[in-house]
Each structure stands twice: as C-alpha cells, then as structure tokens.
C-alpha cells in the first residue's frame, strides 16, 4: 500500500503488539539484580522538617539503603524546560525536601530494597518529625511566605496591547465576571515509572521509561549529574498516555539515576496510583476576574483580565507556561482591539502544577466564551450573532495578535472562523434544535444547548530532525527526535514517508524517543509532532526519493524524469511495463563496497525543518444537555466538535484525538477535581474520589473535521489535532447548562458537579 497515503484512515502500525500483550511499558522493563525504589512522602501540607529517623527502615531485611536530602545534596533543583521568566528560580523543587515540607506527597526520603513489597514496608517505617505550619490553599488569598524573605507570588505574567483604559472610558457597557476553573490533570492510565541502569562497561547511564521529551531530559540529567550528554541515554518504550503530565522531568527520575550510579545496580521505580494523584503534575486551577468593554452592538472594545494561577508548592519544568498561554490565548478567535491580562503566579501548599492537554486554553476559553455569553445576555443579542460580530474575518488572515507566547509571536496563520461556525450550526440543525428544546422546556424539562468557538495552537518549533534510510531488504527506517505517548506517531509519520517515497507504510519502521539514535529531538508536546516531525520526514523522504531515482536512472539507463517509485520499486512513469528496480537493489548499488563506488554511500538522507511560528487550528463545540432537577446531574445528550486542522493525515486518528480530548474535557467540566481539606490533606487520592468519565458518562460524539484553511507554514498544510477536543468543553457545557436552567451566566465555576448545580438550582 503506497501511492496516496496522506489523508487516508489506514489502520495503525502500533496496534498489533499492543493488542497482544507484547507492548513494553515502563513497568515491563526489568534488569537482573535491580533494586526497587519507594518514596517516603510528606504527610504534611506545610511543615518545618525537624528530623527523619531511618533506623527501623534500615534494619528491615532486604533493605539496601535509605536516603534523605543529605544523600543527594549534590543534585541541583530541577530546572525549567519552557517559559522561563525572571523570579521563578528560587521556587524550583529539589529532588528531596530539605528543611520545609510544602505539600502532601512531597518526596522526603527514599528507600531502596531488593523487593518492591519490602521497599514499601520499609518506607512505612521511616519516621518523619515535623512541626506543622498553617497551609496556604488558595491562590487568590493574600500571599504568604514560601521561604525566608520569599513571598508566594514569584512572578506576574503581563500581556497587553492597545489602549485598554481608553476603551473602557468610551464603552457603552462594561461587563465583569468572576470565574474559577478547578484543579485537575491528565491522569494517564499508566502511572509514571523510571528504571535507571549504569552500564559500567561503557560508562553509560541508561534511563528507561522515558516519555515526551527524552532529549531535553537527557541533557538536564547529564548537566545535573556532571556527566557528558553522550554518557546518558534515555529510552522510550510504550507510554500509557501523556496529556502533558507524563515525561516531564520529576524528582523520581533523578533519584533512580543517582542511585544506579551510586550502587552499581539497576534501580526501578513504579509509581502507585495514590502517589500519582498527589505527586505528578496537577493543572488548570485558576481564578479569573475579567472585564470587557463593549459597544452598543456587542462588539468588544477591550478585555481586561486579572487572574490567579494556583501553581501548587513548587515551580516545575513548565515554569510560567500555563499562565502565559492562558494570558496569550484568551482573546481566541475574536478581534479584541485592546487587551490586558495580568496573571499572578501563586504558590500554594498543594501538588505542583504543569501542563494538561490544551493548557491555558481550556481555562481561557471558558473565561472568554462565558464573557461572550454574558455580552449576549446583557445586550439582548443572540449569542451566535455576538460571536459573528467579533470573529476575525478570513480576509484579515494572517492576523497578528501583537503578543508572544512560548517564545513565538502569535500570528493566526489561516482560518475562516465564521465559515466554520456556519457549517457547524447547519450540521446540527441549530434552529430546529432550538425549537425542540423550547418545546421540551415548556413541558417542564431542564434542557438546553450551548456553543463555544476557539482557536488552538500547534506545531511549536523551532526545529525537527529526521533520518530516513532504505536498507538492502527494502525496509525503511525513519529515525525521529519525536516521542510517542500513544497518539499514533508511528503510523502518521509512516504515511507521510510512504507517500513521499513510494513505499508501503507497513514496511516503514518509525523510531522515536531514543536519544542514542539521533542527536536532536524536541519530543511530543504542544501538538507539534505531525506538523514538525511530519514536515522534516517529508523533506528527508523527498531527498531519499531523489537519490533513489538518480541512482536507478543510471542502472536502468533511463532519464530520471521518466521514473517514479511505486510500492518500493523504481519504475518508468510513462510505461505500464518496462524495466524496473526494487529499492532494495538501489540500496545495494549504493553500498560503500558497490562497484562502481557511489559518490555518497547509502540510500538515506537527513531532513531538517525549522519554524519560527506556530500554526493555529480552530473549532466550534456544541453541547446539548439535560439537567436533573433533583440530583443536579447533567447528562450530555449530544455533543459536536468541528475542527479545522488544515489537512488531516489520518482522519480516523484525528477523530480519535478529538473524541478522546473531548471526554477528558468532559471530566474536567463535570466530574474531576483534586480537592483538599482545610489542613491541605488531599482527598482525591483514588479513582473512587477522582472521578474520570467511563463509557457510561461519555456521550456519542459527532466530529466534523474540515480542511478549509491549510497552514501556509508547512508544505502539507497541516495543523496539530491533539488539543481541540478538550479546549472548549467547559465553555460549551457551561453555556448549555445556563440555557437548560434558564439562567444566563449561572455557571461561574468548573467542574459543574451535581452539588454545585443543585446549589444553583436552589438559588433560583
């Protein structure tokens, strides 16, 4: 199967091993003589660490060592990968707590034992003595003290353009909203895991269980441990879901490495679920106080947003990424002539935060679309009409937002936002739907519909590198610096390579997440792989194709421009039959030992793709809900996501991303929430407390994928598809619930749990 592959819903290369139990996830990696690591975690939200007694733990048979901060004093705190801004450094996390405990779950000590059960027994015997301090649990409270002389507000993100104050002076109406987004996270089904092994024969430190950004993590681990990067190698196996949280550099990754070097034995750590829910990155929690200045027609003149970002106890690898994205992406698909966002990064005594699918956008789309609905309600204009009046027009593309994020200037590259909105409304039959809902409401039902429009971002550069090689069996290997977190990277890259080169995609092996196979790689985040790695693959495969045809032209005594590659054979494009040669034979003719000796041996090429700007897909969510008056439960009767991603390489996989993202968004909008009691004790520590949607809660989802606005920034025109399913779920469901209960603007807080909704219903 070669020929046209891009745009086809072919089945995945990844599936056969995963369907047969042959996958290799972190816990499946084991080495002879390995030790098992267990973390002793703080039981205090905020305390002064007085003493740690490890005597009992050390005495337990099978225990090899017990460490506290003094044993890893040479390891610096974990640094920032993205969005480093001034003032954050002192708030980075050390791999083990030194003098203060700042959240329940913080690593305090660590046990190494021959058996994981024994390690866990020993961890229970480690006695941590601490003096409890009052916890700070709300980001919008008065800041407290992080450490001596350091407040819990390390920095403020500020983005502004236009004359905001002037716009508010001339505004016909000013609308003010206070909105909150709850604390939730990606929660992949596979917990984190890390297995370090020091190959003393070669002096190479290996870390298995890597994900997302193996090259960056390799460089950091090397720097932190004072080793040459070439002596540290990371290996990504199968990864049981990423969603932003998995694969960032965490204290546990360093601890297994330091221990493996110190003990000369492999060290394995597999997180349990309780640990995951209190120790791996949380996300999302923000409180916004937003104002909009509008004219009589509902056109936005300015938005002024002040928000408090609950960062948790430390600033981890993402630094200011989430509040920065929230501030930068809030204006979304609308013109907004003047804009100001002031985001207060605040530390609290809760689990530290990082990104989660559509970071900053799930939050700011909720804020912005709540505002659009409020404008509509206040001025008595239809919510869709208000949006139409404010959407950026297709003729205004590319549209410069005049603000930066992630080191790039936001330039909306292409899009027909109103066009997609119209298509989507037509697809759901909006007017008929409204009539039907009105009739049901008259009959006493609490049913309603809501809608949200959004712009996503994707394809973050600045580069990607790919090697494509055809070997003498005719098999193709594509070595990338990308990572796979289960989204189908191998298939998509193989489709792009296969179509470009003229090879069956099933003969293509795609390598990712192996730092010893390629010098550079940025991994998988920010919906970047299909755009960046995809384009680098296309460039490399084009070069291999040209080289194959050039070589074959000599071998076949045919003009190069008369040749094509079909199903792995170089053939004459102008004749049905005639001489042809397999790529395996071309590769043989290019061997360094071939006669005549090739100018440049090997049927292989390298492709580089550089990009200074992101691509911006856009979409519309429509929700139809019914609210149970007695229980406050929301049932989603219908949900539609329309998403323009420029070009879909594999529509089946794109749809999978959208539906999966939607159901995660549904969790964050209705069910999932990390809650704490007044002492800062986390209460969402099992899957019985942290409620993720099951097949029963997930409604049938309609997906419309459009390709009306290809990106001008890459040859295929693709934009990333990973985050649009999640982006606007909170916003659309809030609007639908408002409509169902007949109270515009009622929903001001996510998640909209039955308890909160019952309170709203009682107030009405």
């Amino acid at each position, binding site marked *: 199967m070669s020929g046209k592959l891009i745009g086809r819903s072919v089945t995945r290369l990844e599936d056969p091993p*995963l369907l*047969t139990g042959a996958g290799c996830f972190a816990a499946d990696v084991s080495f002879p003589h390995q030790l098992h690591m267990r973390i002793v975690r703080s039981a205090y939200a905020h305390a002064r660490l007085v003493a740690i007694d490890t005597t009992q733990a050390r005495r337990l048979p099978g225990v090899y060592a017990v460490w506290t901060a003094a044993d890893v004093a040479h390891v610096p705190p974990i640094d920032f990968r993205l969005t480093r801004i001034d003032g954050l450094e002192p708030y980075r996390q050390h791999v083990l707590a030194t003098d203060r405990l700042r959240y329940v779950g913080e690593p305090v000590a660590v046990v190494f034992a021959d058996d994981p*059960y024994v390690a866990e027994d020993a961890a229970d015997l480690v006695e941590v003595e601490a003096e409890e301090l009052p916890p700070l649990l709300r980001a919008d409270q008065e800041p407290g003290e992080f450490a001596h002389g350091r407040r819990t507000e390390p920095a403020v993100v500020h983005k502004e353009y236009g004359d905001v104050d002037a716009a508010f002076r001339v505004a016909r109406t000013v609308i003010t909203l206070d909105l909150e987004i709850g604390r939730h996270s990606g929660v992949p*089904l596979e917990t984190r895991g890390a297995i370090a092994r020091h190959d003393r024969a070669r002096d190479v430190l290996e870390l298995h269980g890597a994900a997302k950004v193996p090259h960056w993590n390799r460089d950091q681990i090397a720097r932190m441990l004072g080793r040459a990067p070439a002596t540290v190698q990371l290996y990504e196996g199968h990864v049981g879901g990423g969603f932003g949280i998995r694969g960032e550099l965490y204290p546990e990754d360093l601890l297994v490495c330091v221990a493996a070097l110190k003990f000369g034995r492999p060290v394995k750590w597999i997180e349990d679920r309780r640990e995951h829910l209190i120790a791996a990155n949380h996300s999302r929690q923000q409180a916004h106080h937003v104002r909009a200045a509008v004219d009589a027609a509902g056109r936005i003149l300015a938005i002024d947003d002040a928000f408090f970002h609950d960062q948790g106890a430390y600033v981890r690898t993402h630094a200011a990424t989430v509040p920065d994205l929230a501030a930068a992406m809030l204006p979304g698909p609308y013109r907004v002539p003047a804009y100001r966002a002031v985001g207060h990064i605040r530390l609290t005594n809760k689990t530290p935060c990082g990104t989660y699918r559509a970071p900053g956008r799930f939050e700011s789309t909720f804020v912005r679309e709540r505002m659009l609905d409020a404008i509509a309600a206040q001025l008595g204009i239809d919510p869709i009409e208000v949006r139409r009046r404010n959407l950026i027009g297709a003729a205004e593309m590319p549209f410069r937002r005049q603000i930066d994020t992630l080191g790039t200037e936001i330039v909306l590259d292409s899009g027909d936002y109103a066009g997609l909105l119209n298509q989507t409304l037509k697809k759901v039959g909006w007017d008929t739907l409204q009539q039907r809902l009105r009739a049901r409401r008259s009959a006493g039902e609490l049913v309603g519909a809501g809608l949200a429009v959004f712009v996503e971002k994707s394809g973050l550069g600045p580069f990607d590198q790919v090697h494509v090689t055809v070997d003498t069996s005719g098999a193709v290997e594509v070595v990338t610096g990308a990572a796979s977190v289960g989204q189908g990277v191998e298939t998509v890259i193989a489709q792009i390579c296969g179509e470009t080169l003229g090879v069956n995609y099933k003969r293509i092996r795609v390598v990712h997440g192996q730092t010893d196979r390629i010098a550079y790689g940025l991994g998988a985040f920010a919906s970047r792989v299909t755009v960046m790695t995809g384009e680098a693959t296309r460039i490399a495969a084009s070069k291999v194709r040209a080289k194959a045809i050039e070589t074959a032209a000599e071998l076949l005594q045919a003009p190069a421009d008369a040749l094509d590659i079909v199903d792995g054979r170089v053939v004459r494009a102008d004749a049905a039959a005639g001489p042809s040669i397999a790529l395996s034979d071309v590769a043989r003719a290019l061997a360094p030992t071939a006669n005549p000796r090739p100018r440049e041996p090997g049927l292989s090429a390298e492709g580089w793709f550089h990009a200074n700007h992101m691509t911006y897909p856009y979409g519309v969510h429509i929700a139809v809900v019914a609210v149970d008056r007695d229980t406050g439960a929301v049932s989603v009767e219908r949900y539609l996501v329309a998403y323009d991603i420029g070009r879909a390489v594999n529509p089946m996989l794109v749809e999978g991303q959208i539906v*999966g*993202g939607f*159901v995660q968004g549904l969790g964050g909008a209705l069910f999932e929430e990390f809650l704490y009691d007044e002492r800062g004790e986390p209460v969402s520590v099992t899957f019985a407390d942290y409620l993720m949607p*099951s097949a029963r809660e997930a409604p049938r989802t309609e997906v419309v994928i459009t390709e009306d606005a290809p990106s001008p920034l890459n040859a295929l025109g693709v934009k990333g598809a990973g985050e649009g399913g999640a982006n606007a779920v909170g916003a659309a469901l809030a609007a639908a619930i408002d409509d169902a209960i007949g109270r515009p603007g009622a929903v001001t807080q996510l998640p909209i749990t039955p308890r909160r909704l019952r309170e709203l219903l009682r107030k009405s």
Partner: protein
Amino acid sequence: MSDKREITLIINGRSYAVRVEPRRTLVDAIREECGQTGTHIGCEHGVCGACTVLLEGAPVRSCLMFAVQAAAKEIRTVEGLGSPENLNPLQRAFMEHHALQCGFCTPGFLMLVTGVLEREPDISDDELIDVLASNLCRCTGYQNIIKAVRAVAHDMRQARSTASA
C-alpha cells in the same frame, strides 16, 4: 511476611510453579513470577480494570486478588488471545475501529469483553455499555471501543444464527 507458598498458576493452559508470599497480588505474580506482562496495573484498588483477567472464565481484577487464591485455577490473559500475525476477531475489531491509542488499558478491555461475550452472547447494546463502564480508558473517549465491541457481538450472533439455521 517472608513465608513463601509454593503454588501453581495455570495461565493460558501453561503451568507455572511459583513461590510467592501470601500477600502477593495475582497481578504481580502473573507479571513478575510468570513473565506475562501484557496484564497491566493501573490503580491497584480495583477501579480501572487494566489488570482484568479471566479466572475460570469470569473477568476479575487481578490487583484485588492474592496469587494464592488463584492457585490451580484456570487463568486467561491477553497473551492467550491471537498473536500479532493472527489477531482474533475482537483484537481485529479494536484495530479496525481504532479502539486503542496508548494501549495500556486495552488488555483489560479485551479480557473483560471476552469473558462477558462468552457468558452472555446475547447481551444488549445498552447492557454492553454498563459492562464497558467497569473499566477506564483515558485516550479514546470510549466511542470506538463501544463500536468495536458491538461489531464483534453482532458478528458472533450472526455466526450463531447462520450455524443454527
């Protein structure tokens, strides 16, 4: 806790003589003592279902059982379904309907569905949702899992009615 018991686990028709502590969970014994790592551990408190195996034909959470409780009983795991070159109909349906992304929860879903369809081949579409709601998936949003399972259930019913006709 170090008193170990000698037991035999019978996994996919093969006997494994293992020595385990009484507290060792079945899933750990299947994975570590018997090397069958296709069965995954997602929560260790019986909610997510990633560790689902068939015990005497019934789906069970192998994280909530001790290995000694499964001694000498017939255990089936994902490794006992089809091979990569020869997927069984349920595995093939998962592939064709894109019912897996990261694949971590997949073995649990496959065993859950295998057990249920063997016992209740006439299960209704709505009852199937209740069954599938006993396991968690974080990638797919379930729609394609539901499609794949319904397709297989439908095909099985079709095949039976053809055979009995």
